[in-house]
């Protein structure tokens, strides 16, 4: 168990290519896996490693995130000592409330960082969904004497046209990072950062101030890349499944991967449970006319139609004669009689009236915005 570190999660990531999925929410609040939000994973990872103090830096559209997290009760983070701290932007003389980048965002919560007594900080973004045991990573950090340890996973999908924050690590045989590339057109390494790193609080504070005084604002570009030689940065490899929320197609593919039992074993390892806000829904009810194959179904669903290769979030209604294939249906959506959905993502509360047909493709899943009626 980690007893001398606190968590710091920043959630203001760019989300343009998630399109309608992030219209009214931050990436951290994007629903995933039938009952979770993106943030649940890294937050649960921290809690499962024994971390009792987590600061969460929010930026835009954070109301749905706050609603989801509440006081942190579901993560056992509603505490008198420590707990979950939501850190929304605020206006001060030197802080406009708008962050130019991660340096600004993290620096804006320097009070929180200063106040937290733990020696180490685990700094993470909210974009990567993974179930990682942080204890061995911390042990490695301590035993190697590294200044910074970065979690990485192999990512063989080299998509030169994509411009999402893509930090690649080039490691020597000891696991030390000798070079880094950010958003490379043609990356030289499959080792991609999972955006989880460990360092001492003192180092983080120093790096932030140094970057700020030089007018720099991106923690990856302006700090990590530049410090590659002067600091001892180590990589820690994560072997499990990681889903990165970067684009609608990626979201779709990563969600569909959950239908693979090995992926579920990684992500929903019962030894490291993923906590989320509970809704007290009833168990899912299958009617006599239901036909369900290869699907993940959350509580509260009432299924009277056909569902195949799909993910149904909590409280979804599927009427008789409806066919849902290769689709993701989020919380509370209603699919009417004789509807056909194929490669469709229905956001929360969407209503599909009887008889409608919607068809997308692997490379272009159709997204129906929150609370829309088709």
């Amino acid at each position: 168990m980690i007893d001398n570190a606190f968590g710091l999660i920043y959630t203001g990531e760019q989300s343009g290519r998630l399109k309608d999925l992030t219209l009214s929410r931050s990436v951290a609040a994007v629903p995933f896996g039938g009952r979770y939000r993106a943030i649940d994973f890294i937050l649960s990872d921290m809690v499962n490693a024994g971390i009792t103090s987590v600061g969460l830096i929010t930026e835009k559209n954070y109301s749905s995130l706050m609603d989801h997290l509440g006081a942190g009760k579901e993560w056992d983070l509603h505490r008198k000592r420590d707990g979950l701290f939501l850190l929304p932007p605020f206006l001060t003389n030197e802080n406009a409330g708008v962050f130019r980048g991660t340096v600004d965002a993290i620096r804006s919560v320097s009070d929180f960082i200063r106040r937290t007594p733990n020696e180490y900080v685990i700094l993470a973004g909210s974009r990567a969904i993974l179930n990682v045991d942080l204890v061995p990573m911390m042990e490695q950090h301590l035993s190697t004497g590294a200044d910074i340890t970065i979690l990485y996973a192999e990512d063989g999908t080299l998509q030169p046209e994509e411009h999402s924050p893509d930090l690649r690590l080039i490691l020597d045989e000891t696991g030390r990072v000798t070079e880094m590339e950010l958003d490379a057109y043609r990356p030289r390494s499959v080792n991609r950062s999972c955006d989880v790193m460990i360092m001492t609080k003192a180092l983080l504070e120093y790096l932030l101030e140094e970057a700020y005084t030089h007018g720099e604002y991106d923690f990856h570009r302006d700090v990590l890349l530049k410090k590659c030689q002067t600091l001892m940065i180590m990589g820690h490899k994560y072997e499990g499944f990681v889903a990165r929320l970067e684009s609608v197609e990626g979201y779709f593919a990563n969600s569909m991967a959950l239908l693979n039992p090995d992926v579920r074993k990684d992500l929903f390892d019962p030894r490291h449970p993923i906590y989320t806000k509970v809704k007290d829904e009833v168990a899912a009810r299958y009617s006599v006319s239901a036909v369900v194959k290869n699907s993940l179904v959350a509580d509260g669903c009432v299924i009277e139609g056909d569902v195949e290769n799909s993910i149904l979030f909590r409280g979804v209604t599927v009427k008789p004669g409806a066919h849902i294939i290769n689709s993701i249906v989020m919380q509370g959506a209603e699919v009417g009689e004789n509807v056909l959905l194929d490669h469709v993502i229905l956001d929360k509360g969407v209503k599909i009236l009887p008889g409608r047909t919607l068809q997308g493709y692997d490379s272009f899943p159709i997204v129906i915005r929150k609370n829309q009626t088709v």
Partner: protein
Amino acid sequence: MKKRIVVMLLAGGQGSRLGVLTSHMAKPAVPFGGKYRIIDFPLSNCVNSGFDTVGVLTQYRPLALNSYLGTGQHWDLDRNNGGVFVLPPYMTEGDARWYSGTANAIWQNREFVDQYDPDYVLILSGDHIYKMDYARMLDFHRRKGAAATIAVISVPWEEAHRFGIMNTDVNAFITGFEEKPKEPKSNLASMGIYIFDWKKLRAYMEADDADPASENDFGKNIIPAMLNNKEVMAAYPFEGYWRDVGTIQSLWEANMDLLGQKPVLDLNDDSWRIYTRNPVMAPHYVSESAKVVNALVAEGAVVEGTVENSVIFCGAHVGKGAVVKDSIIFPGAVVGKSASVDKAIVGENTQVGDFAIVGGPVRPGEKVNNKLTGDITLIGNDVVLPNCAYVPKGTVVNAENPHQPAKEA
């Protein structure tokens, strides 16, 4: 601080008629409906009715119940003022007594009630499945100006002899009470839900406690005594679903009531949610080879076989080729590959081996003691049923008394 009403929930029952299901836990902790425990129903009713101070009286195997209730946070009953309290029997300087009866359990905890100085107490039992707004019952009690109000439900006349029957006048005042009458004069059965004026009840309990011949029971002693003294007593008519799940048969039936096109008991009701300690598990998975028809499946379950007319609890696993029919698979239970489970209750974390048959016909020469179970087969908690085991209909199998694989004929 003063509370208008305090709820006392009688959860002490051993529930011996539930057989091996209650060998390690009190009846209210028995699982129900895919993700609940029986006690979730009265507790959720309390919270939804706006009653926030609940004493839970336990004395039989309280560990499962204690750890289940915790601080009451899952029912929003972790309050600064009020909340849920587990009240086991305790010792005093000169005395140590188990709860000798339902009324005695309340009497021994009078100090707990007194600290809230309530006008009323609501007495509930922990083994009924129903959704009820107790606030409306309290309104009724006040309107009637009654000393005691008993909730009643109309039961079929031919079954009335199995219940405690309330005889009432046209104004719903109780004129008489008969426990399991041979010739019932009314079909209004007591639901075991009472509201009393606390001061009145306290006085009657005190008198009752002083009577060594008394069984210290609400139905047998307190209610008749109040009737004898011509106290104003009202019968609150309840309409809706209500079931005593004190037997294997009724527990099975109540679970089946959750199924069907229009379930008799619909829990998918936003206005009256049943709260529970939610398992931390992923959505359930239904595989390519699975067939799920007319069933309730909870989170964490994995279904690879056929499930029909059944309730599959959280974390249960139905293997490939297995057929589960008219059955209840409790949390964490595993039904092995190509096993067959027919009209059975499979206990928590029990493993049914591959190719096993549970609930098959009784073969010639086989003797089955099915006094408790009728035609329902009951596999207790934490049982490991070997591969190819054959368990005939109506059998009870538990972990202490493991199933002997039947000899091949």
